[in-house]
């Protein structure tokens, strides 16, 4: 940053995005020709590209590292890779004999567990219902008197039915009553 120059000026709005690509060499031949034609006429855009050329290469420069660093880097990476391979091989060795039956075994176990869970769940639901009925407060429960009362109501409701039945039935013999009355009178 030794050579300080005037602050960056904005480029023409229509060209700014293309100028960035032009700087990086990422535009096609036709675009490049259009931009270059514009740059000849427009000092602002020309300066914009120059400024990008000054600023961007200075962004986060790469650290200069000695060959010893890369040698050590490579050795370390290879050691880590070997360690990772060893770890994987250990797992593979452990799992290898089980490969044939591991999936069906796990499948069966999963089904068994599911069945047990379902059975237990069902039982729990049943006990929950029982427990719920035992925990109903006494006030809510119908006592025997109330039950009798409701039963009598049932009878009242069915009275009309009984009356209807009675109306169908033949009248009881009044002669018998009369006979009794007559007998009492005689006595």
């Amino acid at each position, binding site marked *: *940053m030794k050579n300080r120059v005037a602050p960056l000026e904005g480029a023409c709005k229509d060209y700014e995005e293309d100028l*960035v690509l032009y700087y990086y060499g*990422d535009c096609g031949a036709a675009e490049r020709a259009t931009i270059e034609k514009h740059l000849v006429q427009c000092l602002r855009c020309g300066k914009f590209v120059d400024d990008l050329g000054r*600023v961007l290469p200075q*962004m986060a420069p790469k*650290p200069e590292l000695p060959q010893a660093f890369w040698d050590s880097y490579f050795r370390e*990476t290879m050691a880590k890779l070997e360690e990772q391979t060893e770890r994987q091989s250990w797992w593979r060795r452990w799992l290898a004999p089980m490969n044939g039956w591991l999936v069906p075994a796990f499948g069966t176990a999963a089904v068994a567990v599911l069945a047990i869970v379902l059975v237990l769940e069902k039982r729990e639901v049943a006990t929950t219902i029982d427990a719920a009925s035992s925990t109903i407060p006494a006030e809510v429960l119908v006592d025997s008197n109330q039950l009798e009362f409701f039963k009598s109501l049932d009878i009242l409701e069915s009275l009309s039915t009984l009356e209807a039945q009675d109306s169908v039935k033949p009248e009881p013999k009044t002669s018998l009553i009369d006979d009794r009355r007559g007998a009492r009178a005689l006595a």
Partner: protein
Amino acid sequence: MKSAQELGDEELVALCQQGQGHYFEVLVRRYMEKAFHIAYDFTRNKETAKDLSQDAFLRAYANIKRFDGRSSFYTWFYRIVVNLCLDHARRSGKVLWESLDKTTEEPGGQRQLVDTQYQPDEEAMAGEATRRANATLESMPNKQRTAFLLRNQQGLPIADIAKVMKTTEGTVRVYLHRAVAALRQSLVEFV
């Protein structure tokens, strides 16, 4: 018969996929500097960059069988490196100032920006400019920063950046322009 070093990336990958894992060391040699520098651009810390880039090799090797050749090996591998760097940044929630201060103390670091016969005020200006540039980079959305770092620092073509970022070239151009515009804005008084 070609030597291992002469083989192309895809040939080496194919050999690794066939169980000849030792060919992977050629890929490590080929890409270790690039991987390290990408990680360094993201983290500005030598040790973290080393760990992250080495981790990228471990992941690439562990997943080598999943590489289907639809993209080139290096775009696939760059994606792994970039994702690890972004994950690391997310996890650490790191502010770049700290690592930058450390970097400026290292010989061959930020002082390369100025003349060897630098003057204190120029050094301070350079330090401030770099700090501001890196703070701007740090505050950018990840996608803008990634596009900028891959283009500006790694020199990847837009088409390859699009593959690494799994997006379109048009989108990468927009990210790149926005990143450059933000940097230009932040450095306007230092140029």
